[in-house]
């Protein structure tokens, strides 16, 4: 177990270095931050001064080693846009996004499990087809479009919720529901298809033959056995959202989270801030994967690391 965790953490380090070096190299070799930051009519002297100020006049390998050295000490420098430590900006936005994504996953689970279970108990019935199609449609709709449709109906037409902003539950409902659609679709599908296999598995038939109530068979036996599959897909969706995939939805609702920060970073060409974001996201993704792997072992005792 410990060996496995250490292996995974080492892999995480490789990933973080890999992605950081890739982004550093493409941003510094191809891009020209000085040109992007100064107005077009800036003189050559002004350009040279800014390049010197940012340390961009040094050879690229020296910049890279300095950057990697600072990264190990978690120092990403100062954001060019906000003039504050990059890491603190990024970390201050993470909780805002965590609240949103957390609530959306709770909604997704509440919707998806009953959908999948009902469909699995009546395979190939009309109800099954409706629920399976509904979950597939949920996966296929672009989330920013769902966001706009919800705004159109529930905020513009009915006025129940605020169109954008942050702070109260009336701000939270629409973005959370929007983000819940895709994971709900994924989870409902995986529950439906893995349960269809498990409901007639020998252990379930045996349990029923022993006189175990169906509800107990479902919760204690079948659901526990499909949890690894659910965790896989749920973990992927969670990692995706926290990695900025929720950006478009955050932008639509004016939610001041990590996704909105990423969009601002790109518009303002803030290289150090982007490096810090990528670092934090890589760490989060690897942590989620690690937690999912640990949960596998809990739900399936055959899995040992």
């Amino acid at each position: 177990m410990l060996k496995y965790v250490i292996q995974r953490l080492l892999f995480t380090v490789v990933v973080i270095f890999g992605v950081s070096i890739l982004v550093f190299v493409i941003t510094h070799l191809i891009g020209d931050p000085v040109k992007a930051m100064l107005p077009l009519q800036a003189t050559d002297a002004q350009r040279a001064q800014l390049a010197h100020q940012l340390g961009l006049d040094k050879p690229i390998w020296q910049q890279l080693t300095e950057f990697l050295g600072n990264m190990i000490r978690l120092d990403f420098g100062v954001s060019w846009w906000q003039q504050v430590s990059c890491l603190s900006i990024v970390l201050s936005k993470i909780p805002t996004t965590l609240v949103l994504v957390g609530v959306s996953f709770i909604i997704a689970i509440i919707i998806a499990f009953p959908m999948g279970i009902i469909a699995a108990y009546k395979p190939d019935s009309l109800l099954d087809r409706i629920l399976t199609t509904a979950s597939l449609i949920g996966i296929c709709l672009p989330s920013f479009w769902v966001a706009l449709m919800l705004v159109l109906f529930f905020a513009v037409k009915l006025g129940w919720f605020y169109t954008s902003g942050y702070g109260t539950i009336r701000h939270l409902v629409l973005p959370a529901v929007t983000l819940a659609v895709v994971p709900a679709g994924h989870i409902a599908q995986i529950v439906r298809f893995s349960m269809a296999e498990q409901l007639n598995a020998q252990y379930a038939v045996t349990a029923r033959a022993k006189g175990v109530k169906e509800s107990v068979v479902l919760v204690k036996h079948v659901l526990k056995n499909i949890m690894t599959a659910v965790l896989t897909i749920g973990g992927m969706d969670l990692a995706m959202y926290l990695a900025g995939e929720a950006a478009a939805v955050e932008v639509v609702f004016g939610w001041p989270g990590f996704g909105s920060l990423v969009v601002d970073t790109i518009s303002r060409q803030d290289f150090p801030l982007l490096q810090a974001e990528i670092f934090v996201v890589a760490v989060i993704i690897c942590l989620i994967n690690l937690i999912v792997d640990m949960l596998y072992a809990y739900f399936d005792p055959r899995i040992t690391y």
Partner: protein
Amino acid sequence: MSETSLQDLKPIPSPGRQIYKPKGIIRFFARFKYNKIALVALIILFVIFAISIFAPYLAPYDPAKGVLTERLRPPTLERPAGGGFPHIFGTDQQGRDVLSRIMYGGRVSLTVAFTVVGICFIFGTVLGLISGYFGGWVDMILMRVVDVVSSFPGLLVALAFVMVLGPSERNLIIALTVNGWMIHARMARSQVLTLRESAMVESARAIGLSVPGIVFGHILPNIISPLITVFVLDLGHQIAAEANMSFLGFGIQPPKSSWGLMIGEGRQYIASAWWLVTFPGIMIGLTLLCLNLFGNWVREEFDPLSRKQ
């Protein structure tokens, strides 16, 4: 059939065989017998592709030219004041016909998706074939690279590329390609592994075929159907990714248009002009839905293991 004597050369009519013997296109459509929904999905896909390809001939209006007196007209079946085809999907803030823009936008969305998936498919498949066929340290290095790149936060890396290169269609394709090839490599490799030690490959080796001859002539044709499944499903992913990037303003740039960009541009008029965002979104959703239905059908139909009884 095999027990008949050599003299008896008359073909034995067998009613069962005739049904399953149709050739080519008919045989292909006969496979849809048990899944009509997939056939419907395929037909809708054909229609969407055809409309996109022939947009210049089919679109009733120039997608870039607006009539300012016809701004933000809701969908209607009535002919506009100046005559011409009715604006059945309405017009946008510059008086451009939304239907025509959707047709041309589909061209861009599908071109980007097909280009990205095409490059990823070729690159990833060749890499996966090499990795799986040779094994050993080649496999180990390539697969570690795939593992590392797969763990990258895809959207962030794509945005980093766009930030540096500047937003444009070409740069969007580059950014999406960098993030998209790994799944094709993984799939090709896993399939090669099942065939590498088979009698077929061994015989090919025994008669002295070259390595490219074995890999591309014998292994690839036998593993092509799972690869096509991934190709179809990945098309959906890339259409969604393109829409997402364009919506944020980091993908396709005006005056060109794509479905995602149309939604992004129409967003500020959401309170007064619902049709600007609604129709392009339906097109994205419909295309993705059909690709998924068709892709799942390809997987079930051509993979005996996942086929239901």
